[in-house]
């Protein structure tokens, strides 16, 4: 190697790299095209139904945009490659996810969303008007079936400082989480378990658990009345039935119309996930199936054999096998079941340690139960040692000295990647009784007789077999 040349090469490389620099401005048009093309969109816009034009001071709102696909027909939510900005001089701010945090003063501004070379704007007014009370349950009339849920957008009345009415608009982020929802049965004015309204992440969901008419009220502190808690007027809501059938499927099933629980086995100490599928009749007469696990009531006949629990998102029921070679009934029902339900269970999902049932002739309740078989853990392989020496299936292991006894140890590998010693659970067939005899009171310990050389023991564990062969010296 010529060291002078190498030195020069390295020096020049270093200098060239130092002076190398990109040109973001020049690259921008091409990079912008890639940003839009990667999402396959040719235009973006702010969907009016998902974005608010008026926001309260000190509140926040998550703005969203849609992209028009290159086919010119389909629209898709756009959440990546979006740059958000506000018009100059705005006191409010907007983050990279489109969350507008309103400032403490009223102002008018324009939000700009940019995706590559595409952009759209949306005018927003930050209002100092104060929340008075909820005046509508939702911006539009709700149609909801039992065992389903729908997002509601409560409408609030806002009042200016001088007492004049400002506007009615969706309640803002500061208020929606403070609302206490009161639900009564329409026919007797008693507290109702037919529905529940759950607010999470500033989104309120009406969950219909039974069919029937209910009266809903919203109770919330009123900014315009110095924090006095105001209870709204009654909102009448009907919870429709329209449930034609209910069935239980594996949670991994994707075709809800055709799914069925064909494999009802649950391995002991393992979990099988199920879901309740409801088939509803649509207004056009067609049927539509959906996962109604979260809003159904679940029960089990024998918790010693298996246990059940809803997943964190309530979208599936996890059945854990406890006692092998047993069965248990898992039942699910939608509607007003015969069993009493605690109010606290309504919110977190109803899971009872008894079967859930619908009363005979109750048309407002549908149920389904499945018998689950708790089976032994599936063994994928077994390995055996004799006096701590590894053995191979059906291959003789030659002992160099003749022991007085042979002690077998059987280890099983299970399908869940676990391993454990199963010596006491295996079955043994001694095919060399003239050479070894089994010690009484043991699982797999044998006394070696004075004569004979070839030991053979057939070992069986579930569907796994192993032939132990040992050659003993004289």
């Amino acid at each position, binding site marked *: *190697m*010529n060291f*002078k*040349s*190498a*030195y*020069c*090469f390295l*020096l*020049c*490389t270093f*200098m*060239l*790299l130092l*002076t*190398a*620099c*990109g*040109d*973001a401005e*020049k*690259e*921008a*048009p*091409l*990079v912008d*095209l*890639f*940003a*839009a*093309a*990667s*999402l*396959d969109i*040719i*235009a973006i816009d702010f969907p009016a139904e998902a974005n608010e034009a008026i926001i309260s001071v000190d509140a926040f709102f998550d703005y969203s945009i849609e992209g028009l696909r*290159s086919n010119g027909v389909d629209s898709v939510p756009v959440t*990546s*490659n979006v740059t958000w900005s506000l018009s100059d001089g705005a006191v409010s701010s907007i983050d990279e996810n489109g969350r507008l945090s309103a400032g403490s003063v009223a102002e008018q501004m324009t939000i700009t969303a940019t995706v*590559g*070379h595409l952009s759209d704007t949306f005018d927003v007014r930050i209002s100092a008007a104060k929340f008075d009370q909820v005046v509508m349950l939702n911006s539009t009339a709700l149609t909801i079936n039992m065992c389903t849920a729908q997002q509601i957008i409560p409408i609030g009345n806002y009042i200016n400082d001088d007492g004049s009415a400002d506007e009615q608009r969706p309640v803002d982020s500061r208020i929606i989480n403070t609302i206490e929802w009161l639900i009564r049965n329409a026919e007797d004015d008693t507290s109702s378990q037919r529905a529940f309204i759950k607010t999470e992440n500033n989104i309120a969901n009406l969950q219909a658990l039974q069919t029937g008419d209910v009266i809903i009220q919203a109770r919330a502190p009123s900014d315009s009345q110095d924090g006095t808690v105001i209870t709204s007027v009654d909102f009448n809501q009907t919870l429709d039935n329209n449930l034609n059938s209910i069935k239980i499927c594996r949670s991994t099933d994707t075709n809800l119309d055709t799914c069925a629980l064909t494999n009802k086995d649950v391995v002991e100490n393992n979990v099988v996930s199920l879901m309740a599928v409801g088939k509803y009749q649509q207004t056009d007469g067609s049927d539509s199936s959906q996962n109604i696990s979260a809003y159904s009531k679940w029960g089990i006949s024998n918790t010693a054999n298996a246990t059940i629990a809803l997943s964190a998102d309530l979208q599936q029921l996890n059945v854990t096998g406890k006692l092998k070679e047993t069965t248990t009934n898992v039942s699910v029902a939608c509607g007003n079941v015969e069993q009493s339900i605690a109010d606290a269970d309504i919110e977190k999902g109803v899971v009872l340690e008894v079967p859930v049932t619908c009363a005979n002739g109750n048309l407002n309740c549908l149920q389904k139960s499945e018998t689950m078989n708790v089976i032994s853990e599936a063994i994928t392989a077994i390995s055996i040692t004799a006096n701590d020496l590894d053995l191979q299936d059906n291959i003789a292991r030659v002992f160099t000295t003749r022991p007085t006894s042979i002690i077998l140890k059987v280890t099983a590998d299970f399908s869940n990647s676990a391993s454990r010693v199963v010596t006491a659970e295996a079955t043994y067939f001694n095919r060399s009784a003239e050479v070894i005899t089994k010690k009484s009171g043991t699982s797999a310990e044998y006394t070696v007789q004075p004569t004979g050389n070839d030991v053979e023991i057939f070992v069986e564990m579930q569907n796994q077999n192993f032939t132990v062969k040992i050659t003993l010296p004289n």
Partner: protein
Amino acid sequence: MVVKLRLKQLLLHAALISIAVFAAPAAYAGTYIVLAPAQIKIKTDPGSTKPSVIDFRLGYEVNEHKFELAVMSSMNDDSLNELVTDIPSVRSILYRYNPDPSSSVKLEFILGYSQVEIESTYINVPTSSETFEGVSYGIGLEEALQSIPQLKFKVDLIQMYKGDDLDLRLLSVGFRYEF
């Protein structure tokens, strides 16, 4: 502060390299050509495409040093959904250094300067063309064919351009013929 590479600097560096090379005693010297199909990956954060080009090079070799002029032209465009990208032309000056000329499989370090023209077409956007130029660097591997020793099979992997938001990477697989 953005500092751009000037042609003057490049020539200066090339001159430095040339002085060092030609000052060394020449055991071997000769010209060669390279012909290879190549793929240039246009990489951005949101996505990438890989148009293909024909890579033609004329070079001069002195001991462990090679100097090449590369000219490439479009062979196939490539698309990302409705975005069509093409590379009509590439021009490069490359210096290659082989630290171990006696090896049967030669590993070479590549340094140079490239101009890459990219043409893009997208719905509702006029077809546009832009040329990106800058320092190129990479590595190459080559091995002589036993039956025709002056014909070498070669592979080059070169970062043609490295920008703030855009990378252009060349993968070239072809043959080099020494005269």
